[in-house]
């Protein structure tokens, strides 16, 4: 049960955090220059966005959940199962960022979920 809660946090909070950061990044726009000065101004600008802070907070929740589950589960079990974030990412990107998910991509995601199911069966 605890495992399920932690996996939920890793996958959902981690992915939601990435989506928030992605939203913040999109509102800043494409970066064309890579000089230290422009990168610094880019970082400072991104820190002014609430989406960025929400994203970092959610990603931290995901990271600490990962640490917690690693204290009692095998790495070769935890990391493959957290590939579920591909599915969470697709649903989130569709709902939250308005991205269109092609049929091929849904197929790939279904294969990932199948693989995660098989790895879950191998749990000890």
């Amino acid at each position, binding site marked *: 049960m*605890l495992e399920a809660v932690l996996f939920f946090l890793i996958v959902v909070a981690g992915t939601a955090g990435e989506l928030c950061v992605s939203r913040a990044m999109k509102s800043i726009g494409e970066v064309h220059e*890579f000089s230290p000065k422009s990168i610094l101004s880019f970082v400072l600008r991104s820190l002014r966005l609430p989406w960025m802070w929400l994203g970092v907070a959610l990603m931290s929740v995901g990271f600490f959940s*990962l*640490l*917690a589950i*690693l*204290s*009692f589960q*095998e*790495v*070769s*079990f*935890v*990391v*493959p199962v957290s*590939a579920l974030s*591909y599915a969470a990412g697709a649903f989130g990107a569709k709902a939250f*960022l*308005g*991205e*269109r*998910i*092609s*049929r*091929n*991509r849904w*197929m*790939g*995601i*279904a*294969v*990932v*979920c*199948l*693989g*995660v*199911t*098989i*790895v*879950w*069966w*191998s749990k000890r």
Partner: protein
Amino acid sequence: MAIPEDFSVHGAFVLLIFLLFSNNGRNEHVTHTRRLQLKTIPLILISIILGPLGNVFLGKAMKSVGSLSSARTLDLVPIASRVLMSGYIWLGIFCLLVFFTVHMLLLTWADYSYVQPATSLSYVSITMLSYFLLGEVISPLRWLGVTVICFGVFLVGRTSPSTTGAPERA
């Protein structure tokens, strides 16, 4: 464990990646492509190793403090301080930071749809690293699952990287 089996799975994916590269070679700008590959392939290999290595170190650090599943809320502070004192946690965080930087660097010139299928191999390397470095026993069923996940991630990466505001290219 069935090590030859593991390596044949790995070999199949390496072959797959090389097929991907040889396809690119048919481009008109052969020398340009070659030059790009020369810096792209080593960086992809680095990111395939470093990301999973970071997770392995995190796992090692967390295993050393004992299971959190039976810990009480009051125990969390001493556990956290023990985790922060462990060298492995910082090694893991360092690996993940370098991995993240290399990944970002790659994406400044390489297509996401090229980088992502290649990094699906990291699911194979995480399994091999936890076998060799952490001594985890990988059952054939788990290998099958990992291979299926790799294939799925590979499929996801082969689709168009940008779909917003453009007609669907299914």
